[in-house]
């Protein structure tokens, strides 16, 4: 900020904040509407309001009284965390091999990994079901953790490979000269440098696992093992055709809040400047 009054700068600032506000409003409005709806009940649901008119926590209460929602939340946290940890662990090591060690068939290998992401999820359902039953992990959280690697792993491997490729060669060489093994290079030198990429991919993978529905529905059959998206789908109104709109919205709010908190916690890590000062040229 300069002290002098600068019309152009001011206009730019105003335009910039207008853009920020527009982005936030568009992103958040449906969620705001969901919160609004979660406080409504009965015929009110069909009425359009822009501001809160009633404030009832009844929907939130029913979320926790139906089924085993707290348990489902825990399951989701467990499944998503382990999935992300596993995917990042496998992907960080694999992407080191894929980005920094030259060997024959590397391109082909990357393509093969990508190919896993090319098959419609719906089509692998039957085969995956067989594998999971064969492994004896049916109806356990491990079935989901296992199944989720099918979409988290290719993604994390590719993204991390891209980012690791961009890390300066000299830093790695300096570490080699210092006597670091590949494992030490990954864990003590590269990973701290890749926080933005790790946090970002981890976050995206976490959300993907957190929100997955189809596998969760297929591979778990009890309230004790199911995750939140299935639990939301299980929320029901008084009768078959009735959609318990308010309750679903309340559940969605409950489910989304931890993710927002997660982002707020980790967002500091999505900052740059970590590679600054290390190399020049």
């Amino acid at each position, binding site marked *: 900020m300069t002290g002098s009054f600068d019309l152009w700068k001011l206009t730019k600032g105003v335009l910039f904040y207008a853009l920020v506000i527009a982005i936030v409003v568009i992103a958040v409005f449906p969620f705001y509407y969901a919160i609004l709806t979660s406080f409504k*009940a*009965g*015929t*009110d*649901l*069909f*009425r359009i309001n822009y501001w809160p008119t009633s404030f009832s926590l009844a929907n939130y209460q029913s979320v926790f009284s*139906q*089924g085993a929602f707290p348990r489902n939340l825990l399951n989701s946290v467990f499944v998503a965390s382990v999935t992300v940890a596993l995917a990042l662990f496998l992907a960080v090591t694999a992407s080191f091999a894929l980005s920094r060690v030259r060997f024959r068939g590397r391109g082909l290998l990357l393509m093969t990994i990508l190919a896993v992401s090319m098959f419609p999820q719906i089509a692998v*359902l*039957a085969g995956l*079901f*067989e594998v999971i*039953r064969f492994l004896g992990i*049916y*109806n*356990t959280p491990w079935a989901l953790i296992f199944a989720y690697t099918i979409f988290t792993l290719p993604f994390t491997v590719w993204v991390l490979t891209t980012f690791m490729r961009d890390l300066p060669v000299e830093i790695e060489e300096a570490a080699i000269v210092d006597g670091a093994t590949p494992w030490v290079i990954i864990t003590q030198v590269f990973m701290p440098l890749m926080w933005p990429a790790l946090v970002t991919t981890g976050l995206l993978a976490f959300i993907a696992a957190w929100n997955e529905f189809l596998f969760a*529905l*297929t591979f778990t*059959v*009890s*309230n*004790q*093992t199911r995750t939140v998206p*299935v639990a939301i*789908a*299980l*929320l*029901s*109104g*008084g*009768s*078959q*055709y*009735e*959609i*318990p709109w308010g309750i679903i919205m309340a559940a969605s709010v409950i489910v989304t809040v931890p993710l927002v908190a997660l982002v707020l916690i980790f967002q500091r890590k999505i900052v740059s400047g970590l590679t600054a000062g290390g190399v020049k040229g």
Partner: protein
Amino acid sequence: MTLNKMLVAMMASVTLVAGAAQAAELSIVSGDTGTGLQFLQSELDIFQEETGHVVTIVPMPSSTSDQFGQYRLWLAAGNADIDVYQTDVIWAPQLADQFVDLKEAFAEVADQHFPSVIESQTVGDKLVAVPAFTDAPALYYRKDLLEKHGKEVPTTWTELRQTAQEIMEAERAEGNTEIWGYVFQGNAYEGLTCNALEWVNSFGGGQIIEADGTISINNEQAVAALEEAASWVGTIAPQGVLAYGEEEARGVWQLGNAVFMRNWPYAYALSNGDDAAVKGNFDVAPLPAGEGEGAKSSATLGGWNFAVSQYSQNQEAAIELALFLSSAESQKRRAIEQANLPTVQSLYQDEEVLAASPFMAAWEEIFQNAVPRPSAPTQENYNEVSSLFWSAVHNTLSGNGSAAENLEVLEIDLDDLLQ
């Protein structure tokens, strides 16, 4: 129940040889709603008391297509973890090969139930599922508005159209700009098959595919029925009705923005809720009849059943459970507590039932006209048949081809599929 116990229970159900244990552990899968599951649990408690069999409920999302896809997959994989399935009226025939024949076990009590319901669950000579409750839609109408404008409850679709049009126009002239004449389920999905089957059948146009497998849909009466329905869209019904399911229709209705609505019984209690704009101002009647030869009121048969998996390790106990849940006693409790329509005819005269759910009296008449969807003759192809049918109807309603053209193509498609 803890996870461990759950696992133990499942292991047990896999490893136990049928009949080896007197008290079996069973699993029943149900996509029923919250209170429905509570009711089911209370029934299971009674069942456990009576037989000693312990039953676990596996709840499923209420989306029927989600349920159906899952059940198919489980059955295809020979999943022995589930013994009894709660099935929609149209499913059991499609999964007939994987369910146990209940005909013999059910023979004793079969004549207590509506024959059309039993018929809908019979594939060839095999009874694939036994009924839990039934369902049939009705015409919801606004008593107050009909009275205000001096109209009778319509008995034919033409009357409905005219009445709806007049009231709608009069109300709009008075400043009630939001009001529509008629709302129904016009989205391209199973609900439209139900609606359109009623139109076609009420015009005497048959039931798409007859019980003997003849494809009957391409006939003049059916064309007339669809033409009538197409004339509603954009006039007495909003254009958006083409995306409506049950809930959207109920939303419009419950806000007081529709004179007529076609819906299932569930909307009855909700429309009488304290915050509903239509509370106390509405009633139900059988759906209108068509015109021409064979015209009558007709209502698509809905409802749920219980089927026993052939992969069950405890088939005997499972059959016992299915029969228990479809028994007159259980249905009576269901009618009282859940307001579900029984399939046992005598219950419609039962005082306790009527005291708890007075509206059921109104449904008895509706039920006389119930028509099953052609799931029994088409068996595993039913879903595809239904999809072809609702697509043809949806096209007609949205002005994409005339009724005659669309039904002609439909006939060819059905012929290709079923030949």
